[in-house]
């Protein structure tokens, strides 16, 4: 909890990456995520839902068994599927951006906006994490 009348740390002090550093990172899938390929060549992801203890207790009261794992499923579109398949633990973010640009016909700048927004969404849900090289 931040004390009142104290300044927030600047972005650099909080250890956040610059754009160049972030594009050189390697995204990796979280081990808690499972996925399956569907007939329409898209991918469906299933990941555990991280609930706060208060909501877990509510779930118990409403009859959900404690042992039952609460999960969420999402289905990726064609481009999302392509990006997900490139998350092999070896490919940098910028290589993914270039591959998406080549496949979809977007410019590099447009592809960067789309891919980084998608990776950010996956990261917020805990589906991937970024690993810095070196």
């Amino acid at each position: 909890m931040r004390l009142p009348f104290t300044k927030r740390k600047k972005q650099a002090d909080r250890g956040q990456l610059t754009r160049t550093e972030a594009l050189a990172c390697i995204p990796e899938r979280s081990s808690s995520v499972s996925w399956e390929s569907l007939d329409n060549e898209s991918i469906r992801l299933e990941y555990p839902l991280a609930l706060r203890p208060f909501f877990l207790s509510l779930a118990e009261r409403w009859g959900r068994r404690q042992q039952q794992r609460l999960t969420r499923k999402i289905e990726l579109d064609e481009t999302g599927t392509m990006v997900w398949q490139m998350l092999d633990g070896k490919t940098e973010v910028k290589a993914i951006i270039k591959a998406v640009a080549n496949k979809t016909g977007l410019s590099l700048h447009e592809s960067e906006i789309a891919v980084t927004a998608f990776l950010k969404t996956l990261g917020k849900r805990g589906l991937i994490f970024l690993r810095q090289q070196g």
Partner: protein
Amino acid sequence: MGSPDEALRPIGWNGIVLKIPSSWQAIVGGPRTLVFEEDFQPIFQLRWESKKDTRKWKIDEKIMEIWGSNAESLRAKNLPSAYAGLARRKDIILVGLRLDGKKNQLLGGLKYSEDAGSIAIFQLLNEQGIAEVLLPILKTIGFLDNRQKKLWQIQDFSLATPPFFSLKDYCFAAGRTAISYTAKNLDLEICIFAQGEKRLSQQPLYEMVKTLADDPHLAISQESAASCSGIRTPSIMRQILYRLQRKPPFLSCRAWYSNQTDRILALMLCAKSPLPPGLFEELCENYETTLYKEEEAGRQGSVDQD
């Protein structure tokens, strides 16, 4: 980091034109700011401004304002050898930071034109390997005055507008570029949508035109499967209704699909009074995508310098 043999391609944005190596990407950083990158590495930043008064540029004051008191303009005697070609140019001033003794670290510089009343300030973000391409790029920087057509050529499109249009707003999103301009009593908007074929499979072109014009009753004429126009020239009573709704009564809109680049281009011109004859057709003729031209320039590999 680009090479002298690499083809240069033209860039134009809000009153400035220049040529950059075809392997560089130009990113709009602001209404009068461009950032150039190669392989996602920023190399070069360019911003420009116009003189507010008729007094001569005070270059030393400008340098101190931008780079601080430790920076100085580099004269021929202390210019790094790689930039010796710039010594003869009186309109280009390189700026460096004195490190120790006579050595200087190149920070950037200025290019100014008293005739055009404009100054361009460039900053090097990555000096490695840029010396060979810097001179050709700086030579090509030109300022457009109020009598010349403005060239807007960046990312994947090219448009030439009459000089009375000024930039109002812009948006470079994934798969969608939208730029709006304004002039006295006229508003112009252009859009480019990527993955055109996929979009057309979900929504026909005439529906896109109606959506862009925000008018479901727009009179549509379909010139071909890949091109569609809409026009609105209301009666006096309807003009009053549109004005009450704060919508410009007179409107022309066109959308077309470019098979070569898989892009849908759209252009809309609107006004409170009847549109100037020929202006809409002129703008449509000057509006095109440039992706395929960049690929051709890269393949040719020819040098294009002034």
